[in-house]
């Protein structure tokens, strides 16, 4: 119903808009202000806990123009998701104001991820005439910390770590000036009023402050020392990436023998000197998240890195400048530096000064820190371009919290995710919010960080859960946490959660055929699954096919030693006759070990059965002698992928054999492995066999898809971090007429499990109540 006043004064209207989406901390209010002033409208705009509310009053035509421009001219990272409009009685008041926030209602506004330094700020930092010349904490409306410094929503300076810094008159003037890039920029600061650098020795002694501290850090890095730098989301360990001896020292102190390090470079041009860069990869590197991007290293690198940065790895993870502090460092150094998380492998990133001094004292030579607290640690994000899309492998700084719409979310819930790659998700009124990657919950520190992450996310999003979702594995730490929360617990089967994560990302309700391929997750029958085909439709789900199970002699020991898994696979192939054959993996064991392995495989002694595709990769890595022992997660599977990518020809392997087992199909890989092992023994190139294996896997997926005949196919699980497998499977499925969906914004690995758990738990709740 339109108020009568509108008819009486046809050219004066007043409307109210409630805007939701990424509209806080992104210059949205100044943007609205400029538009309104431009169109000669009166009114106000303010942040609310739910987003932004604004009222504009003026001629009808001006309001319509304002609305059109609002949608058209809004620029990322700002994003309008919902816009509800209401007509009001004109008030006749003049002028347009930005009013301070209200903190009513449940916060549902986007909490923005941290944003890397923008071009404008970078220009100022390197301009000797600018008052922010060489100031490492220069930010504006378009860049700087967000999630990592917020105390409570809505996002306002008084509710962030910036409240410790009172703005000087010059900064305040910018903050109040609608024409300024820093108009209402909550992180606004300058050398006179903002955070300051400090350089400390390992024992905590203060060595220098401000620019002297920066110079000291630069000197240390030039000399090949290891510097712990307090970055945007936490401490990073930096060292000269050209200096083999220095990199070796970092590896030794971090107890990280072989896992590749990420390398920071000053620009895309410098990145290009190290790795091949497609336009899409360049855009990904330069995006506001400033993630680590996995790239193909140049063999003919103009600026070669030390070989131990990413030993034996054809890929290299590169990242660009995150903050002006990184910009100043890199500008002075002029060479690439290793930039790895400030932790020991698997532990959470250190963010607090005291914590860093304690935990990194054995690793770093110097600490370059500052007095702006990091309230919520966030590690670097990791992406890889797969099948023409930047695919998130680790959702953290710059990307988390990640908000996904899910209409099934009606009751607040917490989903606790996986075990090794932990990240939790919240379900709340129409959304799932994925929190940042935390780390491996085998570690006690990671468990503490995970508990803090639960508290942080719950309070930021004001979620008082009515239910908790976790994995079905009884021994995941998160299963215990779930039991201790005092709410009904929904134990979501691992591979179902993998499929649901992708369905949520693409808003699919089903029916889908989910191809859930990963390492090892607890299956619905209590055995280890990982090579699964599941159909999902609404709340109905069924395992329709799986890889033929084989044994993992030694359980987790087999996952660390692919040669054991190869024995499990060969035992499934040859039975006891295996021990008389001359397979490569057998040669990797002593006579005593062979005897023990024999007993284990024959009797199933600490040799659990698995149907895992990831573990089949491990076995193939061993059979092709690419990796007998893995020093980090995924090393063996990566070795097989890399070999395949270098193949000159594809060695064809016997087609997949699909055997009905009751109402489930078993995929018999034995003819394939047998041929692969024989060919390897006969001297066929490992690379060509690795390629043949990839083709076999893709063919298996297509065969099953044809058999099930469901038009939508979902690829999910850690195996689809493998670009070659993903691209082969997608191409072939699409050629066969299937629509293929996979994890792109949500990690395909266990880092995305929480999304699927939240989605599934909500579907079940919805079924019960609706």
């Amino acid at each position, binding site marked *: 119903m339109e108020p009568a006043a509108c008819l009486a004064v046809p050219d004066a209207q007043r409307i109210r808009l409630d805007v939701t989406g990424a509209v806080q901390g992104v210059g949205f209010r100044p943007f609205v202000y400029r538009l309104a002033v431009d169109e000669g409208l009166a009114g106000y705009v303010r942040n609310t806990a739910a987003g932004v509310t604004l009222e504009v009053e003026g001629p009808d035509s001006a309001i319509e123009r304002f609305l059109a421009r609002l949608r058209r001219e809004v620029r990322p990272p700002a994003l309008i998701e919902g816009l509800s409009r209401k007509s009001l009685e004109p008030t006749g008041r003049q002028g347009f104001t930005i009013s301070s926030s209200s903190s009513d209602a449940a916060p549902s506004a986007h909490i923005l991820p941290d944003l890397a330094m923008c071009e404008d700020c970078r220009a100022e930092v390197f301009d000797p005439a600018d008052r922010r010349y060489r100031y490492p904490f220069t930010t504006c409306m378009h860049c700087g910390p967000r999630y990592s410094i917020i105390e409570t929503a809505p996002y306002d300076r008084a509710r962030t770590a910036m409240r410790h810094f009172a703005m000087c008159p010059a900064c305040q003037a910018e903050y109040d000036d609608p024409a300024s890039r820093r108009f209402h920029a909550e992180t606004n600061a300058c050398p006179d009023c903002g955070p300051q650098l400090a350089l400390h020795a390992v024992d905590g002694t203060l060595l220098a402050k401000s620019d002297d501290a920066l110079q000291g850090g630069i000197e240390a890095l030039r000399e090949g020392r290891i510097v712990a730098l307090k970055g945007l989301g936490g401490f990073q360990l930096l060292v000269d990436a050209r200096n083999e001896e220095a990199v070796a020292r970092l590896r030794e102190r971090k*107890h990280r023998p072989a896992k590749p390090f990420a390398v920071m470079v000053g620009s895309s041009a410098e990145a290009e000197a190290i790795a091949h860069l497609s336009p899409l990869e360049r855009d990904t590197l330069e995006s506001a998240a400033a993630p680590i991007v996995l790239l193909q290293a140049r063999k003919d690198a103009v600026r070669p890195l030390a070989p131990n940065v990413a030993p034996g790895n054809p890929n290299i993870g590169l990242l660009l400048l995150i903050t002006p502090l990184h910009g100043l460092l890199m500008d002075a150094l002029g060479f690439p530096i290793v930039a790895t998380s400030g932790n*020991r*492998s*698997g*532990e959470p990133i250190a963010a607090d000064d005291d914590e860093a001094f304690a935990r990194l004292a054995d690793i770093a030579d110097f600490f370059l820190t500052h007095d702006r607290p990091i309230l919520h640690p966030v590690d670097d994000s990791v992406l890889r371009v797969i099948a023409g899309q930047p695919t998130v492998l680790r959702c953290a700084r710059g990307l988390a919290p990640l908000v996904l719409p899910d209409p099934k979310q009606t009751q607040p819930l917490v989903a606790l995710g*996986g*075990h*090794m*790659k932990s990240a939790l998700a919240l379900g709340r009124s129409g959304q799932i919010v994925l929190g940042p990657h935390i780390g491996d*919950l*085998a*570690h*006690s*520190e990671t*468990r*503490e960080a995970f*508990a803090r992450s639960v508290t942080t996310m719950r309070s930021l999003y004001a979620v008082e859960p009515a239910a908790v979702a976790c994995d079905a*594995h*009884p*021994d*995941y*730490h998160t299963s*215990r946490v779930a039991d201790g929360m005092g709410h009904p617990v929904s134990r979501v089967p*691992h591979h179902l959660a993998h499929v649901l994560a992708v369905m949520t990302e693409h808003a699919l309700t089903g029916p889908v055929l989910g191809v859930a391929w*990963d*390492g*090892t*997750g*607890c299956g619905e029958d209590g055995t*280890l699954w*990982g090579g699964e085909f599941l159909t999902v439709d609404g709340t109905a789900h069924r395992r329709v096919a799986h890889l033929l199970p084989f044994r*993992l*002699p*030694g*359980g*987790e*020991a*087999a*996952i660390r030693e692919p040669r*054991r898994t190869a024995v499990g696979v060969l035992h499934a192939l040859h039975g006891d006759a295996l021990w008389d054959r001359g397979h490569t993996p057998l040669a990797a064991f002593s006579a*005593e*070990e062979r*005897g*023990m*392995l024999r*007993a*284990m495989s024959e*009797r199933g*002694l*600490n040799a*659990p059965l698995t149907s895992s595709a*990831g573990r089949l990769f491990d076995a193939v890595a061993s059979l092709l002698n690419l990796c007998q022992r893995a020093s980090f*997660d995924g090393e063996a599977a990566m070795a097989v992928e890399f070999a395949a990518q270098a193949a000159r020809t594809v060695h064809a392997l016997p087609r997949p054999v699909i055997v009905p087992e009751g109402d489930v199909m078993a995929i018999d890989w034995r003819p394939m492995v047998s041929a692969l092992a024989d060919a390897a023994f006969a001297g066929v190139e490992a690379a060509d066999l690795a390629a043949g294996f990839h083709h076999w896997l893709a063919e298996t997926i297509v065969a099953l898809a044809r058999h099930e005949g469901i038009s939508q196919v979902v690829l999910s699980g*850690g195996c689809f971090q493998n670009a070659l497998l993903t691209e082969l499977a997608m191409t072939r499925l699409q050629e066969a007429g299937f629509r293929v969906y996979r994890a792109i914004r949500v990690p395909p*690995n*266990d880092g995305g499990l929480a999304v699927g758990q939240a989605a599934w738990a909500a579907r079940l709740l919805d079924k019960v109540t609706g």
Partner: protein
Amino acid sequence: LAHGSGGLLTHRLIEEVFRPAFAQSPEDFTHDGALIDVPGAQIAFTTDSYVVRPLVFPGGDIGSLAVNGTVNDLAMCGARPLWLSAGFVIEEGFPVEDLRRIVGSMRDAAQAAGVRLVTGDTKVVERGHGDGLYINTSGIGAVVALQPISPRQVQPDDVVIVSGDLGRHGMAVMAARENLGFEPPIVSDCAPVAAPVLRLLEEGVNLHCLRDLTRGGLATALIEIVESAGVGMELEASAIPVSAPVRGACEILGIDPLYVANEGRFAAIVPEGDAGHALSILGEFDGAATVIGSVRSGGTTGSVALKTMGGSYALDRIAGEQLPRIC
């Protein structure tokens, strides 16, 4: 039911089935045995059933195990073991010769531990129903400890001592059962530990808590303690004594020695100031006795952290078989 391995499932059975039915106070069923006040004295009373396969293994048999297990449970209550009962469930057709040998080994074990077998019972069950032989023993001891010995006494900064090297019993039994043929064979640590415990008490060592490291091994025992004590614990991985053969066998089999059963090992939690004294006494009985960690004041309560070169790992109760968690 798959509730055998002393881990999470057994814990749940106790918490969800037995404790609700029998416990009259929250203290009941929190320990290996019950302390009972009788006129003029306090006694400890405990019972245990033994179902080991095979019945004979390097270093012992079901008979010596049935005596030592119950003797050790009494010792863990700070009691001098005095009297045992023995109940035998024998499968029809079980060779009398074997039974005679096992009973002989019970007599020897009782003699060595200074206890008397004073009463018993025998039942024969149908062929195929008894798995050879089961033995139940109950024991009564006189409490010597002047102060309570329980997880509740555990204080921050207390130190954790183990009485000897770990994992031999479980590995010896597994090797015998699965015919693994380790060379040289691993011999069980099955033995009474009453003597060292009584010496500790006699010499006035302040024992806050004692726990035998049987099913579920060191890890499960310590997790139970920190959970009921509401403290955290930090262990130094390199300090935990595991013999080279056990370590090697565990490595090949992919088994964590901290979860392997022992039958002659216990953990003592004592104030920091008493640690040296306790160690010098325990050292007379077993050279491998050593301090392996301490009780933490800060951090997460109810958790045991294992410090290694590669970082600090949290130990968990494991549900049944160890199912890999690496995805």
